[in-house]
């Protein structure tokens, strides 16, 4: 495969890898940066299921919550190191994706109904863990306090988490490129464009949709595992429908199927949002999200192909200038 296709990933890697040094390892900025990178990862993973395969998935909150719970429970109950716990959490989340996804695709649940049933899954799991008091219940279950031991993975300085999320983001981006230019990628795009036509041409629609869902839920499960180490507790409210909705918003505003556009949009918009939060949010609660909603509506109505088009034209102009 053409090595050049991986090049833009470096453009992500270098400035982000320098970020902790630029802010001289300030914990607040590291915390914010880690959350933003985690979101960018989820958006990049979401691109596989929605951008490529065209299934509007709103289950990110459920999959992230699952990763949070499995990693947290393994550490708290059986004292299993998160190094293993995160991976097990990702696998368990993919298993959940399979259990839900198999019948969903088998019975041909599509479009708005797929979106709604995946959003319903978030609420179901949230309430299930709320009612199931032996495991979670309404109390916050706290992980061991910061000790700096590698076994517990609870560090006072957040730079480890930042680099873990960054590594996951880079892997997800590489995986995106790899899938996009492989046979699977073309099958998924065919499914997105026209499911019946793809099936007629011999694409196993159910199998590839399920595969996309498994990859996506696995990665989102991993982000949940990193999240619980930063948050330091788990609680049913971490099955958060807002994660699902925000992921979809960022993915759509960024541009469907845009491998770099969507995560880049996530980095920019969430950065601005965080800035607005401590400037405007202190004046009027919720104002920063009002701005956000207006941007979303305007982009979809007037720039339906997403912000990635804007980035692409800037990139092309930059290349043209350099050629002169």
């Amino acid at each position: 495969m053409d090595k050049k296709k991986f090049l833009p990933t470096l453009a992500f890697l270098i400035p982000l890898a320098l970020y902790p040094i630029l802010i001289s390892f300030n914990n607040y900025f590291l915390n914010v940066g880690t959350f933003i990178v985690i979101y960018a990862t989820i958006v990049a993973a979401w691109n596989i299921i929605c951008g490529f395969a065209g299934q509007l998935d709103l289950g990110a909150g459920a999959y992230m919550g699952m990763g949070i719970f499995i990693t947290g429970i393994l550490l708290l109950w059986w004292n299993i190191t998160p190094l293993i716990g995160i991976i097990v959490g990702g696998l368990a989340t993919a298993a959940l994706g399979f259990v839900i996804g198999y019948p969903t695709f088998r019975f041909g649940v599509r479009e708005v109904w797929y979106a709604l049933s995946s959003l319903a899954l978030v609420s179901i799991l949230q309430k299930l863990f709320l009612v199931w008091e032996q495991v979670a219940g309404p109390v916050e279950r706290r992980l061991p306090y910061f000790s700096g031991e590698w076994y517990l993975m609870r560090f006072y300085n957040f730079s480890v988490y930042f680099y873990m999320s960054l590594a996951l983001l880079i892997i997800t981006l590489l995986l995106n490129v790899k899938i996009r230019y492989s046979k699977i990628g073309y099958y998924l795009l065919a499914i997105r464009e026209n499911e019946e036509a793809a099936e007629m041409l011999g694409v196993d629609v159910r199998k590839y949709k399920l595969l996309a869902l498994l990859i996506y839920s696995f990665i989102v499960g991993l982000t949940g595992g990193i999240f619980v180490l930063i948050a330091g507790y788990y609680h049913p409210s971490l099955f958060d429908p807002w994660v699902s909705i925000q992921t979809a918003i960022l993915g759509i505003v960024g541009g469907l199927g845009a491998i770099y556009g969507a995560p880049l949009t996530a980095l920019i918009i969430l950065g601005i949002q965080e800035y607005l939060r401590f400037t405007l949010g202190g004046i009027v609660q919720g104002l920063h999200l009002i701005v956000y909603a207006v941007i979303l509506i305007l982009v979809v109505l007037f720039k339906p192909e997403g912000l990635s088009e804007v980035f692409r034209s800037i990139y092309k102009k930059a290349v043209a200038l350099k050629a002169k």
Partner: protein
Amino acid sequence: MEPIQLVQSVIFGIIMGGIYALVAMGLALVFGVMNVINFAHGDFVMLAMYITYFLSLMLTLDPILVPLITIPMFFVLGIGVYMGTLHKIVRGPALSQIAVTVGLMVLLRNVTLALWRAEPKAIQYTAVAGYFHVGPFIFPTSRLFGAVVSILTLVALHLFLTRTKLGLAIRATAEDADAASLFGVNVRNVYAFTFGLGTGLIALAGALIMTFQEVNPLSGLLYGLLSWVIVAMGGLGGVVGVFFSSIILAIAESIGITFWDPRAREIIIYLIFIILLWVRPTGLFAKR
């Protein structure tokens, strides 16, 4: 499982079902006629609840009278929202409709958050507060009142859709918008009117719910998903389908709350939804 308890929870279910039917009717109308996917439906319910709270406080008015003001207000709001955002994408891809209505949802949520803060709000007085006994069974007055008003409204709506010329135009547009426009129906106006009508119904539903329930900026999600469950169950079976689906769903919910756990409300409703989509994607009352 005591039989009296079971009958009581079925009674509660039927009463709540009557109210849910009105909540879902606006969505069923918009989805059925315009084929528009409205994710912000629940948040319009939430907005209606807040405005009912606000007006009843400002004007010292009983919340059951507030709809006299809010129904025309929401009718105009609905037409405005349709003209401003949805008109452009009414024939567009499902994804754009979902994205725009998700935008509206975030907007409504945070506008109410900015105006009224996150603490739950409840009304202070209503003439229909309290409950009464019939034999061993309890009837909460406010919910029963809500169910009766809701059923009367649905009957009126059904008559409007089946007996009037405008109702015929709406049904014709739902059946086939292009054919309807060839027969002289102004589809654009029918769409705007339908969206306004749906939003007007929400104003009434919100006021009725407000008589017995508190509201916070996140209340919208439950009412939105609940309405979608009812629409999925009712298929496109019109007012009757929506009504019976609501009753069935509310009875299941009520039995689950009584005998399992009050916090399990969402689990029951959404599990029914997911399994229904698997086994009967056309709904229980689809005509075709």
